[in-house]
C-alpha cells in the first residue's frame, strides 16, 4: 500500500477560508487543520479524517468563537485594501446595509413600496404567462403531444377540425405517433330529478384517456368496445358533475343517466380536477355510425397525438404532409385547398389572441417597473448625497472604491430582499382581483386560469427580478457615489451635499424618463377604455337595450324531424306571448354577440361559381318578429310573415352588406340564390335589412342571409324578448315558458343582450383595466419622482434663493425660477412620451383590430392630466421656496 498524501476535503477547506477574515490567522488555521488532518488520517483512516475535518470546518464557520475572531480583527481589516475574504465582507456589507436602511425608515419604506408595486405588477403578469402559456395543461408529457388540424394554407389562422374518414386514415397510416386520439364537442342536455341542465362535454376516442394517463376515480374509463357504434351509450362523469347531480354516490356508477333525451350508462368517474379539454364535465365514446365513418366533409374532430419515443415533431409534420398528399390524390374535392397542420398540444389549446394580449400586459408592467426603478435610482441618489460625507470618511481611512461600491450594492440587495414579500402581496391581490373579474362561463376557455396564484415559481421569479433590477438600478447611483470627492466632502464649511453637475443631470433625466414612460401607458389605458365602451355601447346595427336572451339546443333523439322542431318553436312563441311585459319576441338559430356563428355557402343565380373561392355568408333562421325584437331595420322589401310557410315559396332576407357586395349596381330584391344544404333549388330574396355587428373584433357588418324558421327550423334555438322593464327580470318567466313546452330542454346562456356584449369584451376590458392600473401607477410614481427632484432642487438652492431675495427678488421671481425648472422637465418628458405614445397607439390599433383609432383628443387629455400631476407635484417645493426667509437661509450657511 502506497501512502499517498491525501489532501483535506476541498469544499470544507474553502468553508474554513471564507469563515476566517484575517489573512494571517486564515493561513495558520488552515495549516493547523492540514497538519492534524494528516495525524488523524494516519491513525484512523481517510473517512474518519474527512469527517473530522468537516466537523472542525463547520465548528469554525458557525461557532460563536469563530465569529469572535472576525470581530477581533474587523477593526484592522476594514482599512486594509486586500486580503479580506469576499463572503466575509459581503455578510458584513449586508449587515451594515440593513442598519443604514433602518436608520432612514421613511426613505427605505418608500423605496420598498415603490419597488414592490413595480415588481408586483410584473409578478402578476408573469404568473399569467406562466400559468396560461408555459404550462396551461396539467398533463404528463404534454410537450410530446401534438394537435392536428386541417387548414387551408392561405388562411392558417382558424383551427379547423377534421372529418372522421380522414381521422381514421391518419390513425391507420401515421406511425410517428404511439397514440392518436380525437375529441369533438358534445354538450348535452342533462335531465334528472333536478332542473334540466346544459352540460359541457366531449366525445372522445378510446385512446384519449390512456394518452393523457388518466386513472378513473370510480369505475372505469372508455374502451375500444365503447366506441363501437351501438355500444356507445356510455359516459364518464367529471368529479364535479358526479357530486353536483349524484351527491358523489358510488352507486351512481353503473346506473343510468338521461342525456339528450336518451338513456346512457355511467361507467366511471374521472379523477378530481380532470376537465380536459376546455372544462369538460362529461365524456362519451366517439363512435361513428357507418355513414359518418366514411364522411370526408363533416368536420368535427380535433385529433391529438403523442409522439413515439425518438420521433420529432418535424418528422411527424413531414409524415402528415405525406399522408395528406395521398388524400389529395384520392379525394380531390373534399380536400381541395387544405393541408394537414401540426402544432404542439399547448399551442393548439391556447387562445390565439392570448400571447399578444399577455405580451402587451408584460410590456406595460415592465414600463411600470422601469418607472419605479428610475424613482428608486433617484431616491438612492438623493440619499447618497447625505451619505456622501460618511463615504468620504471611509475612503479617507483607506476603503477602496470597489469596497464602497460593494457596500452600496449590498444596500440595493437588502432592499430587493425586503421588497420581495411586499411585491408578492401586491401580485396576490392583483391576481385575486383578476380571477374574480373573469366571467365564469369563460374560465373553461382559458386553460390554466384556475391555477393562477402565488407559488414557488412566482416567489423565485420575483426574487430574481427584484435582485436583478435593484442591482442594475443600484449600480448607477452606486457608481456615482463611489466617486467620492475626498477634499470637497471633508472640507470644513464647504456646503454639504451639493450634487455635482453630472449627478444633477442624471437625476433630472430620470424624472424626464418617468414622465415620458407614464404618458404612453395612460394613452394605452385610455385607448382600451374607449374600445371597450365602443364595443358595449357603440352602434351594433341592432338595439341591445331592454332585450333578454336565452339559448337552448333541441336534442336529436326527440327532435329528429323538421316538423318536431317547427312545432317546438311555434309552441314556444305561443307560451312566451303569455309572459307579461314582453313587447316583441324573436327566435333565431344564432345571435349577434353570441359564441356561435353559422355560415352557409351561397350560389347566386346568374353568377359563375368559383370552386376555389366559394361565397360563404353568415346564416340565420329567424322567426318573423326577430327583426322587431332586436330593432334591426328593414331597409327594403318586407320582413318575414305568416305567408312564409314550409309549403310556400322559399324566401330569404339579406343584409345590406350582402346586397351591396353581390349586387352592387342592381336591384337585389327578387334575386335568387341557392343555399348549401337546402332542398329547394332557389330561394328568393324578398327583403333587405340593416347590417349588424356580430363581433367587434372579427365580424362587423358581415354579409348575412336570413331564412324563415318555418322553412328551415333549426335545432339551435336562441330566444330574444324585448321588454320596457329590466330585461334580466324576464329570465325566470321565459325559462318557465320553455319548461311548459318541453321540461327536458334546459335553457342556458340566460343573459341580457348587453351582458352578452360585455362578455364578448371581457378580454378587452381586462386589457383596459390592467392598462388603467398600470397607467395610474405610472402617473403616481412619476409625480412622486418629480416631487422628490423639485424638493431636492429647492433645498439645494436655499442659499442661492436667500441671496436673491436679500438682493430684492420678489416671491414671483423665485416662483418663476423654480416652477420654470419643473415645467422644463415636464415638457421635455411629455414631448418624448408623446413620441412613444404614438408608436404604442399604432401597435394597439393593430392589436385591437382597428376598433380604435388614436384620437388627438385622447392625447390632449392625457397631456393635461400629466401637466396637472406635474403642477401638483412641484407645488409644495415651489411654495416652500417662495417662503424662504433670506436672513435665515444665509445664517445657516
Amino acid at each position, binding site marked *: 500500500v502506497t501512502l499517498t498524501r491525501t489532501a483535506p476535503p476541498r469544499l470544507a477547506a474553502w468553508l474554513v477560508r471564507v469563515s476566517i477574515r484575517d489573512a*494571517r490567522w486564515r493561513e*495558520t*488555521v488552515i*495549516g493547523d487543520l*492540514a497538519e492534524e488532518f494528516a495525524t488523524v488520517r494516519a491513525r484512523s483512516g481517510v473517512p474518519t479524517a474527512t469527517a473530522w475535518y468537516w466537523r*472542525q470546518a463547520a465548528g*469554525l464557520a458557525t461557532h460563536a468563537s469563530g465569529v469572535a*475572531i472576525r470581530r477581533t*480583527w474587523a477593526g484592522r481589516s476594514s482599512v486594509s485594501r486586500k486580503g479580506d475574504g469576499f463572503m466575509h465582507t459581503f455578510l458584513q456589507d449586508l449587515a451594515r446595509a440593513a442598519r443604514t436602511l433602518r436608520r432612514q425608515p421613511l426613505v427605505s419604506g418608500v423605496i420598498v413600496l415603490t419597488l414592490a408595486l413595480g415588481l408586483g405588477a410584473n409578478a402578476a403578469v408573469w404568473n399569467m404567462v406562466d400559468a396560461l402559456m408555459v404550462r396551461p395543461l396539467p398533463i404528463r408529457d404534454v410537450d410530446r403531444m401534438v394537435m392536428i388540424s386541417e387548414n387551408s394554407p392561405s388562411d392558417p389562422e382558424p383551427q379547423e377540425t377534421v372529418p372522421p374518414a380522414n381521422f381514421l386514415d391518419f390513425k391507420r397510416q401515421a406511425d410517428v405517433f404511439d397514440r392518436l386520439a380525437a375529441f369533438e364537442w358534445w354538450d348535452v342536455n342533462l335531465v334528472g330529478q333536478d332542473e334540466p341542465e346544459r352540460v359541457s362535454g366531449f366525445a372522445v376516442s378510446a385512446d384519449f384517456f390512456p394518452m393523457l394517463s388518466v386513472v378513473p376515480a370510480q369505475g372505469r374509463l372508455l374502451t375500444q368496445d365503447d366506441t363501437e357504434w351501438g355500444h356507445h351509450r356510455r359516459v364518464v362523469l367529471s368529479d364535479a358533475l358526479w357530486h353536483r347531480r349524484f351527491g358523489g354516490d358510488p352507486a351512481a356508477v353503473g346506473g343510468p343517466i338521461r342525456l339528450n333525451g336518451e338513456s346512457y350508462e355511467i361507467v366511471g368517474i374521472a379523477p378530481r380536477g380532470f376537465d380536459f379539454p376546455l372544462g369538460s364535465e362529461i365524456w362519451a365514446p366517439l363512435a361513428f355510425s357507418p355513414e359518418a365513418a366514411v364522411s370526408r366533409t363533416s368536420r368535427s374532430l380535433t385529433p391529438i397525438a403523442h409522439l413515439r419515443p425518438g420521433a420529432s415533431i418535424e418528422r411527424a409534420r413531414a409524415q402528415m404532409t405525406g399522408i395528406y398528399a395521398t388524400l389529395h390524390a384520392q379525394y380531390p374535392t373534399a380536400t381541395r385547398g387544405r393541408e394537414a397542420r401540426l402544432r404542439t398540444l399547448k399551442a393548439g389549446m391556447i387562445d390565439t389572441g392570448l400571447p399578444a394580449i399577455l405580451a402587451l400586459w408584460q410590456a406595460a408592467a415592465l414600463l411600470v417597473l422601469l418607472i419605479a426603478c428610475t424613482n428608486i435610482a433617484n431616491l438612492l441618489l438623493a440619499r447618497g448625497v447625505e451619505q456622501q460625507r460618511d463615504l468620504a470618511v471611509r475612503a479617507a481611512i483607506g476603503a477602496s472604491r470597489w469596497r464602497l461600491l460593494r457596500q452600496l450594492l449590498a444596500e440595493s440587495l437588502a432592499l430587493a430582499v425586503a421588497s420581495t414579500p411586499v411585491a408578492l402581496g401586491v401580485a396576490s391581490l392583483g391576481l385575486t382581483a383578476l380571477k374574480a373579474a373573469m366571467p365564469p362561463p369563460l374560465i373553461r376557455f382559458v386553460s390554466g386560469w384556475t391555477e393562477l396564484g402565488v407559488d414557488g415559481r412566482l416567489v423565485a421569479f420575483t426574487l430574481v427580478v427584484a435582485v436583478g433590477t435593484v442591482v442594475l438600478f443600484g449600480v448607477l447611483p452606486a457608481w456615482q457615489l463611489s466617486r467620492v470627492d475626498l477634499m470637497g466632502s471633508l472640507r470644513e464649511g464647504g456646503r454639504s451635499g451639493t450634487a455635482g453637475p453630472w449627478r444633477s443631470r442624471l437625476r433630472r433625466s430620470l424624472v424626464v424618463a418617468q414622465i415620458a414612460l407614464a404618458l404612453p401607458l395612460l394613452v394605452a389605458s385610455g385607448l382600451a377604455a374607449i374600445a371597450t365602451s365602443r364595443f358595449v355601447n357603440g352602434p351594433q346595427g341592432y338595439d341591445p337595450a331592454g332585450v333578454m336572451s336565452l339559448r337552448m339546443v333541441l336534442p336529436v333523439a326527440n327532435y329528429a324531424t323538421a316538423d318536431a322542431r317547427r312545432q317546438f318553436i311555434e309552441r314556444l312563441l305561443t307560451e312566451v306571448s303569455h309572459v307579461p311585459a314582453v313587447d316583441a319576441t324573436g327566435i333565431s338559430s344564432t345571435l349577434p354577440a353570441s359564441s356561435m356563428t353559422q355560415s352557409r355557402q351561397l350560389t347566386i343565380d346568374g353568377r359563375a361559381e368559383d370552386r376555389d373561392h366559394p361565397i360563404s355568408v353568415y346564416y340565420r333562421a329567424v322567426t318573423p318578429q326577430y327583426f322587431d325584437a332586436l330593432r334591426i331595420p328593414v331597409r327594403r322589401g318586407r320582413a318575414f310573415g305568416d305567408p312564409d310557410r314550409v309549403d310556400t315559396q322559399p324566401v330569404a332576407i339579406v343584409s345590406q352588406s350582402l346586397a351591396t357586395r353581390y349586387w352592387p349596381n342592381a336591384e337585389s330584391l327578387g334575386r335568387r340564390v341557392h343555399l348549401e344544404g337546402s332542398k329547394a333549388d332557389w330561394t328568393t330574396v324578398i327583403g333587405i335589412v340593416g347590417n349588424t355587428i356580430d363581433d367587434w373584433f372579427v365580424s362587423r357588418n358581415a354579409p348575412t342571409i336570413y331564412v324563415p324558421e318555418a322553412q328551415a327550423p333549426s335545432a339551435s334555438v336562441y330566444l330574444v324578448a324585448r321588454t320596457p322593464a329590466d330585461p334580466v327580470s324576464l329570465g325566470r318567466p321565459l325559462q318557465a315558458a320553455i319548461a311548459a313546452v318541453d321540461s327536458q330542454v334546459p335553457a342556458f346562456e340566460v343573459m341580457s343582450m348587453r351582458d352578452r356584449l360585455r362578455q364578448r369584451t371581457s378580454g378587452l376590458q381586462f386589457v383596459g383595466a390592467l392598462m388603467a392600473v398600470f397607467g395610474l401607477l405610472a402617473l403616481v410614481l412619476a409625480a412622486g419622482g418629480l416631487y422628490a427632484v423639485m424638493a431636492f432642487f429647492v433645498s439645494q438652492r436655499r442659499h442661492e434663493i436667500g441671496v436673491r431675495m436679500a438682493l430684492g427678488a420678489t416671491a414671483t421671481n423665485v416662483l418663476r425660477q423654480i416652477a420654470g425648472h419643473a415645467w422644463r422637465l415636464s415638457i421635455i418628458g411629455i414631448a418624448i412620451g408623446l413620441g412613444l405614445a404614438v408608436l404604442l397607439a399604432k401597435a394597439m390599433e393593430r392589436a385591437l383590430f382597428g376598433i380604435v383609432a388614436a384620437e388627438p383628443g385622447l392625447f390632449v387629455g392625457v397631456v393635461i392630466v400629466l401637466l396637472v400631476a406635474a403642477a401638483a407635484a412641484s407645488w409644495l417645493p415651489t411654495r416652500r421656496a417662495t417662503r424662504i426667509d433670506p436672513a435665515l437661509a444665509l445664517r445657516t450657511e
Partner: protein
Amino acid sequence: MATNLSLGELEQVLLLAILQLDDEAYTVPISRLLADRVGRHVSRGAVYTSLDRLEAKGLVTSTMGEPLTERGGRARRYFTVTSRGLRALRSARAALLTLSAGLESLLEPK
C-alpha cells in the same frame, strides 16, 4: 495598569502551555497539551480567539516559521510569552496563592 493585565482562566492556561512547550509552542501542540495533560477540550475557535486577544494585549508575541509541506505549504505560528505576559502570570499566581493560603486542607485533592 494592573487591571489591564488581569487574565481570564483560559488565558492563564494558554500562557502556561506556551511556557511549557518552550520553542515548540504553536497552536496544534498547545491544544493537544490542554487536552492530554489537563483534560480540557477547548474549541478550536476559542483557542485562536484567545491567542489573538493575548497578542493584542501584548502578553504574547508570535512568529511565523517556515512553510511546511505537511501543512499544505503553510507556516506554523509559534508563540512566546512576553515579559509583560510573565508579569501578568506572576501576579495572577500570587493572587491565587494569597487567597488560597490556609485553605490547603480544603483545596488539596485527597
